[in-house]
């Protein structure tokens, strides 16, 4: 298929020419997904670490539930958020449907369980190692959690990056709650879906290549930053 080679050259051309429409779409995708990741991290890390440390009845059930929610289908999340934000739904008065904020909400719901579940596992593994030591120091629960989060930061970073991968790549949720409105809620993935449905396969694939490059750049930046921080810490 000649589509592959023409997709690559199209992707390069779009990037180099700084296509205005493309830049707008990239900016929105990053804005929504990075915000969602930040929010999901704020909710997911504390949730995951508390689940790792706290002992309460039904804990196993909660952990299984959070793990299961990692498999939430984006289209289902989109549908639920649509029904909540619809003018016929309970939060219709907020007028959030078909806005970037609606997409942010949907992606946060999608990603929080991933970060919480992976954080819980990371913290629990560390806790096994540290338990006795922490107890002998007489550390309180808050201190234990802080220690686990700090010492487990590399693994937690991976959890956050896994969440980012999910957010930037999903199309089902943002399509429903964002509506793929040109200049308002069109993201990389909804643009790819649109171009595919127009039969513009080469352009769709070119956008896919750019999306991959974007994900690579974000991952590389995060790994680079954390590596620098790590070296600085041990210097």
């Amino acid at each position, binding site marked *: 298929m000649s589509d592959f080679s023409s997709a690559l050259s199209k992707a390069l051309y779009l990037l180099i020419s700084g296509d205005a429409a493309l830049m707008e779409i990239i900016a929105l995708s990053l804005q929504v997904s990075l915000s969602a990741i930040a929010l999901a991290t704020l909710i997911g890390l504390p949730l995951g670490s508390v689940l790792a440390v706290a002992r309460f009845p039904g804990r196993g059930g909660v952990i299984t539930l959070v793990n299961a929610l990692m498999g939430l289908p984006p289209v289902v999340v989109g549908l639920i958020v649509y029904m909540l934000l619809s*003018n016929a739904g309970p939060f219709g008065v907020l007028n959030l*449907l078909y806005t970037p904020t609606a997409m942010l909400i949907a992606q946060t719901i999608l990603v929080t369980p991933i970060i919480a579940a992976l954080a819980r596992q990371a913290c629990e593994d560390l806790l096994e190692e540290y338990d006795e030591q922490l107890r002998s120091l007489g550390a309180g629960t*808050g201190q234990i959690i*802080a*220690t686990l989060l*700090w010492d487990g930061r590399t693994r937690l970073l991976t959890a956050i990056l896994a969440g980012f991968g999910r957010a930037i790549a999903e199309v089902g949720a943002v399509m429903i709650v964002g509506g793929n409105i040109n200049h308002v809620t069109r993201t990389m993935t909804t643009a790819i879906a649109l171009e595919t*449905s127009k*039969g513009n396969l080469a352009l769709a694939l070119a956008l896919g290549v750019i999306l991959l490059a974007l994900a690579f750049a974000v991952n590389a930046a995060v790994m680079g930053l954390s590596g620098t921080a790590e070296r600085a810490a041990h210097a």
Partner: protein
Amino acid sequence: MFLSRTFTRGCLMLAALVLSLTLASPRQAAAKPFIILQSSTSTVNSGLYNFLLPRFTSKTGIEVRVVSAGTGQAINNAKNGDGDVLLVHARSAEEKFVAQGYGVKRFDVMYNDFIIVGPADDPAEISGLEDASAAFKIIAAAKAPFASRGDISGTHKKEMKLWKASQVDPVTASGTWYRETGSGMGATLNVAVGLRAYTLTDRGTWISFKNRGDFKIHVQGGTALLNQYGIILVNPEKHPNVKAREGQAFIDWILSAQGQAAIAAYKLGGQQLFFPNAGTLSSLPLTGRD
């Protein structure tokens, strides 16, 4: 406590990041008036709006945000009040929408036509026919692959009507030669090309569709294949959030001489995709109305 201080600082930095990212959304800050148009996918995929809407916006200052969904989904979204104006192509469903009080009034906007496309070698030998139902009957008898939208869109409703007229119930063959994609027109065309299956499509989507392979138009021209688009203001009495003034301004403009001329002026590869017919209802053949 060093550790918890680091942790708190991390949290604060994240919170600041969230705030800066969400507040930095320039589009939302703009106070420019806008309406939401719930539209069938066919008009979106054809590129018509990219041509029409800047003209309307520069005249009125009202931005039109188009949500593209199959006619069934678009009507449902509009029923929920998630849109100000509805532009779709399934006349009976549109009239029901108005009769149930969800819409104010329905107006004809424009039309084009449906066509049956399929592989160049035409395995069922339907090429040249004008009668779509007759063609469907031949396809069914030959058990030639056929890709259906299967999504209660305007095109799907038209297809079911044509099957009914052909006295074949294709749904019993679903999964064999009859394939229901449950997706939009473009996605279904991609499937049809992949399966070398016949499919019913509107001409606008077909002309703008790029992944045609060797596919050709085999059936066209019959009055039963007429594809009429209608526009409706969502009823502000049902949903007070509806921007009735701005929505009506858009409807008035698209039905005006200027709007209608703009529709006629939209061409792709030298071909006109939509034919304006606001207010000329009676001149259309009755059989083609849907």
